[in-house]
């Protein structure tokens, strides 16, 4: 900024950004306050007002109101963090949540100071996720929640852990907290109906709190036996924190009882009476978290039913795998399960025998058995009868596998979807978990489309096959090599002759096998937006058929996915061909079944394709988008600059991950924006839809020779 703006100029800008005409927000005092700031702070404030105005004028208004004062006490980083928290809250829970954050900047600043050394969930979650997965027992998820608690399947940690002085100790506290929550699932805390037991007392809440404290003592002892290192850290943090639950003599006695190696949750419940009599409230260690027995019970009931069925189905699979002659007595095969206690490992090992013959226990069955064992403490005998066909409700065993197509009907929810961030250029920041993506499969259509295409383009297909076959990097024998595995006799004879004639010895006398090194994986992203209806759709499908034919001759690995979306809540990826799928009738049917859907929201598709490509091991990874126009979406600000910038971001992310994006488009105006997205040489405009089938394979050829 060259000349300092006057209050008047600032006021004008604010009026425009905050849409003062409609919102009737009082601008003048804001402008005066901002104008009074020193130049750098003024531009900082204005920049953030402008950026947050793209979220909502009221958010921007609060920012403009508070930033000048905040800058007097705190640094700009804290202010930024405050704004980001508000904007995230707005994305997540709406305007009211954002305004709640914005109304009380002092609170944020105060917390911020405390949190300077805090462990932020996003920073520690990756490590802790692997940490709990490494511990034995059921596979647990880790999510951010309001407080630390678990429902028995997911562990929740607060967004920031800041009880300790130093960042390192806060991380340790986070680790101890997840370990304790893990211990609740691992050492059978919820095998008892805690809620029911606590209801017997006059003050159930107090009873539950005391139970929690007692149970924590028991679990700490369990952890101490299993994980000595953690027990040491607990002792250390207790000193740092100064608190100790076992101050009172009666609590010390409880702790001693519960430290017995065979103490179970029943022992904890037995002590509850005594604890209820002596204590009004118990002091908790900082890693105790909260206990929500009702939520646990809910989850557990569903899980037990599901896992019982699932185990039966899996056992049935095991039986079928054996494919043995039926027993002469026509009785069902007998499944025997032995749990082998281990001295080294705490969890028992499972061995399964069918009709007396031991069979290997597949990993998923083992996990299932472990989970059941954790819930019930044993595997009940009636669990071991394999399910016959039709004996179970498939819905029970596939809780996650809801038909994505039905998700939009009826009650709306985001279960089972994948979330992707989106780049908001206005605020120069990502919107976290913004796009809700679901993967669907194109319904295959068995018509004569494929045959028709192959007939219509027969000559072209033949030629494509020939060209692509020629591109195959064949193995060949290189002659006259210094190193190699065989003698090149022509060269040797020559070399000896020359040597006799007095020339220097030529040591290029070996042959060596050159190996094909064409190691390319290509993913095609097909625009399935509504605008492709008609001609374009048909041309796309024809192009894909020819492309696949060419790929079969070439041998590169390739996958095809379609994408479409309607608002950020309904982003869809359509699987047409996975990398590991052969080009068979099903794939042809799906290509034939590609139908235009909704809009062209592109960012999530590129991000998803990036993830898919990164799972493939290849020297060169190509992502080729086939599209007919700009990124676009329904009734959303995705149209225009926003969509273009998000797409550009997604492409940058892909490029950074080592993927080479390329775009084939039918949009004649593409030259206006594609260079900005892909760079000057990374796109091709096909100006005639009819030519598309001819062009796509050829473009790929040029890309990869």
């Amino acid at each position, binding site marked *: 900024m060259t000349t300092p703006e006057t209050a008047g100029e600032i006021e004008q800008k604010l009026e425009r950004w905050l849409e003062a005409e409609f919102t009737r927000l009082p601008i003048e005092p804001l402008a005066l306050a901002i104008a009074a700031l020193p130049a750098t702070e003024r531009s900082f404030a204005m920049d953030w007002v402008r950026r947050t105005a793209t979220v909502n004028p009221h958010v921007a208004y609060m920012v403009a109101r508070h930033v000048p004062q905040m800058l007097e006490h705190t640094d700009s980083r804290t202010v930024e963090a405050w704004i980001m928290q508000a904007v995230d809250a707005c994305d997540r829970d709406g305007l009211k949540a954002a305004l709640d954050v914005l109304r009380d900047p002092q609170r944020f600043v105060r917390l911020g100071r405390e949190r300077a050394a805090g462990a932020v969930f996003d920073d520690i979650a990756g490590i802790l996720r692997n940490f709990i997965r490494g511990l034995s027992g059921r596979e647990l998820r880790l999510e951010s929640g309001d407080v630390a608690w678990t429902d028995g399947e997911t562990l929740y940690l607060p967004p920031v852990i800041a009880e300790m002085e130093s960042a390192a100790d806060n991380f340790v506290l986070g680790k101890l907290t997840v*370990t304790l929550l893990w211990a609740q699932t691992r050492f059978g805390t919820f095998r008892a109906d805690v809620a029911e037991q606590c209801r017997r007392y006059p003050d159930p809440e107090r009873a539950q709190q005391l139970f929690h404290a007692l149970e924590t003592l028991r679990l700490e002892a369990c952890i101490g036996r299993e994980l000595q290192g953690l027990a040491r850290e607990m002792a250390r943090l207790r000193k740092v924190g100064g608190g100790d639950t076992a101050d009172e003599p009666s609590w010390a006695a409880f702790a001693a009882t519960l430290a017995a190696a065979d103490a179970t949750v029943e022992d904890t419940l037995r002590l509850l009476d005594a604890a209820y009599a002596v204590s009004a409230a118990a002091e908790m260690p900082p890693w105790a978290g909260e206990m929500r027995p009702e939520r646990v019970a809910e989850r557990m009931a569903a899980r037990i039913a599901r896992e019982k069925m699932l185990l039966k189905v899996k056992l049935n699979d095991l039986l079928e795998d054996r494919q043995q002659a039926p027993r002469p007595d026509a009785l069902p095969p007998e499944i025997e399960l032995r749990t082998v206690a281990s*001295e080294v490992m705490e969890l028992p090992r499972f061995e399964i025998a069918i009709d007396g013959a031991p069979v290997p226990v597949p990993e998923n069955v083992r996990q299932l058995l472990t989970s059941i064992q954790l819930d019930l403490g044993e595997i009940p005998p009636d669990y071991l009868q394999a399910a016959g066909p039709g004996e179970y409700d498939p819905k029970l065993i596939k809780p996650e596998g809801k038909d994505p197509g039905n998700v939009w009907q009826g009650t709306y929810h985001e279960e089972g979807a994948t979330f992707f961030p989106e780049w908001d250029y206005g605020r120069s920041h990502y919107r976290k978990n913004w796009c809700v993506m679901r993967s669907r499969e194109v319904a295959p259509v068995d018509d004569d489309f494929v045959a028709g295409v192959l007939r219509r383009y027969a000559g072209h297909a033949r030629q494509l096959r020939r060209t692509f076959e020629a591109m195959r990097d064949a193995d060949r024998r290189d002659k006259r090599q210094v190193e190699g595995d065989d003698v090149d006799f022509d060269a040797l004879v020559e070399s000896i002759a020359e040597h006799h004639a007095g020339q220097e010895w030529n040591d290029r006398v070996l042959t060596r096998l050159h190996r094909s090194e064409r190691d390319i994986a290509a993913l095609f992203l097909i625009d399935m937006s509504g605008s492709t209806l008609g001609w374009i759709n048909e041309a796309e499908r024809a192009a894909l058929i020819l492309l696949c034919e060419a790929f079969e001759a070439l041998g590169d690995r390739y996958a095809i996915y379609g994408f479409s979306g309607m608002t950020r809540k309904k982003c869809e990826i359509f699987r047409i061909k996975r990398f590991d799928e052969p080009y068979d009738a099903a794939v042809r049917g799906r290509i034939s079944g590609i139908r235009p859907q909704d809009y062209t929201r592109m960012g999530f598709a590129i991000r998803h394709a990036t993830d898919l490509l990164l799972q493939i091991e290849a020297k060169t990874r190509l992502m080729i988008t086939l599209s007919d126009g700009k990124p676009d979406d329904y009734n959303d600000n995705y149209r225009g600059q926003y969509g273009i910038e998000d797409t550009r971001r997604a492409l940058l992310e892909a490029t950074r991950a080592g993927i080479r994006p390329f775009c084939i488009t039918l949009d004649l105006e593409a030259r206006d924006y594609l260079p900005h997205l892909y760079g000057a040489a990374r796109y091709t405009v096909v100006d005639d839809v009819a030519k598309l089938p001819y062009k796509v394979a050829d473009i790929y050829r040029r890309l990869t020779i």
Partner: protein
Amino acid sequence: MQDVELISPQLAIVDAEPYYQVVGDEVSLFESSYRNCLPVLLKGPTGCGKTRFVEYMAWKLKRPLVTVACHDDLTAADLVGRYLIVGGQTVWMDGPLAAAVRAGAICYLDEVVEARKDTMVVIHPLADSRRVLPIEKRGELVHAPEGFMLVISYNPGYQSVLKELKQSTRQRFVAFEFDYPDPELEAAIVARETGIGADLAARLVKFAAMTRNLKGSGLDEGASTRLLVHAGKLIADGVTPVAACRAAIAQAVTDEPEMLAAIHELSSSVF
């Protein structure tokens, strides 16, 4: 020309009994395969004792042992042999497989899927009832004597489609599956191999199980028995358990910082 010391395939005689903890019936199966001139395929994750088993069996059967660690550039010529040019003359030199066949040794091709596909051409005729090794370049057919035995190993855990053994190959072999031993046995092995106490060995095994739980969610393989032995040796030498686990196990199984940190947290929890 001066005398050149030629590289010759090693026909190692296993003199001292290698330590091998028998897990099941693998020894009698192997002996039976040997008596019946059947080739053997050992499956299993890395570092679970396949190579040690072959050494042990070579010692037990009193056969020389030729071990070839296969790599993705290993060709049939590397196995069979090649002509070298010495002073303007070509001299034939047997490769390790040819040498093993001639000597009636046990030839162990470790991680055979890594080798180039053309190696199968020489492996197939050796692995069925013909038991011959064609040496094309010399026009020679070497018949394997009774003592010769072909052993190959591979790790089915690699998920790459390129590293799968073809049916035509695998169906020639008697296949043994190896896995990490049961925890008690593994602890005993670690204690025996390293000299650390039973308690420490049990903790190492417990830690290994934790890393094996991570397989598939960021780790390709958990800590193998071999790595536990490495860590145990470091510990026996005075390195603290946490440092030993970090150097010998965590760093060996992954490079990824977040995973390293998680594994480190696990090891410092156990010890």
